[in-house]
């Protein structure tokens, strides 16, 4: 399923138990379902509102989280 980035923010002041910087975002799928995601900071320069990608469930320090992976093939 494809998810589209509605908005995102790079957090420079992590909330414990996080201890390093990360990106959070809101994504939406074709069925207009929305959810929170985290995004690896290595993608920061690739992101913009409307970027599409997939989400994967991964373990975070405070429980399961959604990790958004942008589809780099669709980014110019």
């Amino acid at each position, binding site marked *: 399923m494809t998810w589209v980035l509605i908005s995102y923010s790079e957090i420079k002041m992590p909330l414990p138990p996080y201890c390093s910087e990360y990106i959070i975002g809101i994504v939406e799928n074709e069925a207009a379902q929305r959810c929170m995601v985290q995004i690896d900071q290595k993608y920061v320069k690739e992101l913009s509102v409307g970027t599409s990608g997939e989400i994967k469930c991964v373990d975070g320090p405070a429980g*399961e989280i959604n990790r958004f992976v942008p589809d780099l093939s669709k980014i110019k």
Partner: protein
Amino acid sequence: MEIAVVSTGHTKFGNASADIGDLMLSACKQALDGVGAEISIVDVIYIANFSSGFCGQCHLPAVLASKLGVNKEITRIESACAAGGLALKEAVLAILSGLYKTALVVGVEKMSETPIEETTGILARAAEKTEIRHGTIFPALYALMAQRHFHDYGTTEEHLAKIAVKNHKNALNNPVAQFKKEITVEDVLNSRVIASPLKLFDCSPVSDGAAAVLLCNEEVASQFTDLPVYIMGIGHDSDRIGLFERENITTMPAVTHAAQKAFKMCNLNPRDIDVAEIHDCFTIAEIIEMEDLGFCAKGLGKEMIDEGRTEINGDITINPSGGLKAKGHPIGATGISQVVEIVKQLRCECGARQVANAETGLCCNVGGSGATAVVSIFSRRYK
């Protein structure tokens, strides 16, 4: 509505050495002393407060009863940063019920003794659980709104910076403001990023403080003052707690609904408002609320800022007190502090920050990322 604010009290916002009980007492005493009243004339008291997590003190109604040395009906109200607005609404309803003639409403928070990481964590408890699990802090929720507002409407970091500059300038003339420092657009843009695109100077500070207002029905009000300020309308709305649960993150429907209720109650509209205190916890919030309150069309907040129309004596003065951004933001006190400023403006008691000929004012108090909103409208003329 035949309810008037007859007196106010306000501690200086910032880092206070007083404990939370003494902060409340100081604001309450100012409000009572302002009209030469004794606590015995107060029928009921409401306390607005967000969290005992900051200073470790629960059971604030009993704390205040001890400080005042009285037995009274005292209730604590919590709804994140909108606690003050909601406490005001409860006091209005209490008086309208006919059971009470006078109500004292005091907002308070004591935050500065808590380490900043802990403060951020306590504040985050007002967000949705999934947001917290993903490491979302409140600046980030407002940053998400800002990023999308930039995308949809062309608002920029410079527009947000101009709001911070305006509110710091206004706070220079407010004796109870936390910050007395003029800043420039460059200062804001060069301050460190907290959650992109929001920077340190886009964020309201951690503050201690208390504010109080004494409300009376019209019959009693005339016994205390010749300068009553009437509550003309008050609206309240709650929305979904998670920002991601909302259809559009560039608007706060709770603000729109609360404003519609308040305006309808007094048959006024946004063009009737001379001065407003609105909830600029982050600079983007001031733009979104200006639009949602109907002061301009959606997306045109940036133009009002560019044209200086929200500065003191502009088309509509917004945050002459300095707002949360520069006056300070002790969470539970904020909604009442907004009312104190509007009452003082309508009584022409604001000195160098006075809005000329202000007759009608509005307060917009918001909780969380916009999930709770209380909008109240005041006038020095009763219609």
